[in-house]
């Protein structure tokens, strides 16, 4: 292998892309999300539940038409960066460019600023929705892929991690995930999307759960055993009766996405990260 000439990406272009991504993510929900809500509305057992799902669909279409955020909670900007190792960034630093884009996007898009600087004492709003939470992976290639999850607080608060023993098995995972959604009840704006991370360690499992949430809604894990687990969990969750907005019904979750990773011989960490029905996330590749 010879010496690869790096591909140059300007920091200003990263900031511009991030700005557009923030606005688009909060206002334009993917068609697949709307189709999925429509499909569940067709089978929802509760009349009030169907009425709520119709209202949600009307809301999401209005948001796109008028370029307004579908939910007022436009979240903390959770950013996944897949940075090609043959990319060279010029004209500024990467983290500053992402935060500059978030600052401008949240201002120009009339998005809510929901970040406080100090979690415990002052809790002063930073007034520009920065800093973003940035997870960076170095990957092969000469591209930069940016994925934004505008992650609201209501569903995030209903998330949890369990450090299970291997003997807990599939049954342990099933009980934990279903119980977590049951306990969350009406709080996380059901119908929810359930992100499940299994394996890794104490910090990796929740990150896997978060990554599960940025998959296209209703997509399947490529491993058939995990795909079957997703189906099984979705079916069990939709028997809970919580329904749209917790008012009762057969649509408590729109999808369950499971991601997994290798782990220690002694461990089986499991994390559940919930998303509301809005579930705003989008990607852009430079």
């Amino acid at each position, binding site marked *: 292998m010879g010496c690869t000439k790096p591909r140059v990406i300007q920091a200003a272009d990263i900031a511009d892309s991030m700005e557009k991504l923030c606005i688009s993510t909060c206002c334009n929900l993917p068609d697949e999300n709307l189709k999925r809500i429509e499909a569940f509305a067709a089978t929802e057992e509760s009349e009030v539940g169907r009425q709520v799902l119709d209202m949600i669909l009307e809301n999401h279409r209005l948001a796109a038409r008028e370029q*307004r955020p579908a*939910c007022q*909670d436009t979240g903390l900007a959770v950013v996944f960066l897949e940075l090609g190792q043959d990319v060279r960034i010029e004209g500024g630093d990467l983290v500053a460019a992402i935060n500059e884009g978030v600052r401008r996007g949240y201002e120009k898009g*009339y998005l809510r600023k929901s970040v406080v600087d100090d979690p415990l004492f002052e809790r002063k709003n930073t007034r520009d929705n920065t800093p973003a939470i940035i997870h960076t992976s170095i990957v092969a290639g000469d591209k930069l892929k940016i994925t934004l999850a505008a992650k609201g607080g*209501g569903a995030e608060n209903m998330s949890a991690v369990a450090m299970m023993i291997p003997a807990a098995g599939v049954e342990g995972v099933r009980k934990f995930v279903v119980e977590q959604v049951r306990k969350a009840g009406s709080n996380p704006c059901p119908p929810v999307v359930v992100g499940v991370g299994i394996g890794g360690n104490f910090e990796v499992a929740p990150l896997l759960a978060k990554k599960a949430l940025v998959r296209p809604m209703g997509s399947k894990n490529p491993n058939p055993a995990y795909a079957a687990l997703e189906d099984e969990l979705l079916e069990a969750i939709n028997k809970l*009766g919580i329904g749209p907005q*917790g008012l*009762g019904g057969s649509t408590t979750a729109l999808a369950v996405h499971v991601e997994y990773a290798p782990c220690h011989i002694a461990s089986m960490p499991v994390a559940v990260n919930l998303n509301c029905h809005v579930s705003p996330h989008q990607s852009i590749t430079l």
Partner: protein
Amino acid sequence: MAKRITTPLDDETIAGLKAGDQVLLTGVVYTARDAAHKRLIALINEGKELPIDLQGQVIYYVGPAPAKPGDPIGSAGPTTSMRMDPYAPTLMEHGMKGMIGKGMRSKEVRDAIARHRAVYFAAVGGAAALIAKRIKSAEVVAYEDLGPEAIRRLYVDDLPLFVIDDMYGSDLYEQGVAKYRKD
């Protein structure tokens, strides 16, 4: 069929509301969420006057998105109510009659709702752009420094809500799950 009700809420209106009712609410409601509640309770504990008169009033748990030019308010759906549970009984003692949010309330709040003859409504969470269309005016009346968490006086017209907790102790979330749960 939704019942039309207006604020401030009187005893007769509240007595007529049952868990599961759909209502269209018209009139003034005040916004407040975590940070504003903390300040209101601090004032009460210090025996000081509140920036708003709570008698018969309804508080909407919402931190709206900024208004686009020409609009009274940005997207404005409910936030999770349980975070206001530690504060809500004290506000009911001081005259608050209604709350709008989403999600379950604590036993303490439900007991206080029965004791003070109040009511808890849910709006549809995540239907924030649609809800904003029912808000005709908005002005900050206290704590502007809190940004989205400032207290605003809203005038709402036919805001669609569900009665979750009524003054008789019934809870729509419990009823809903009991009806549709499959064991």
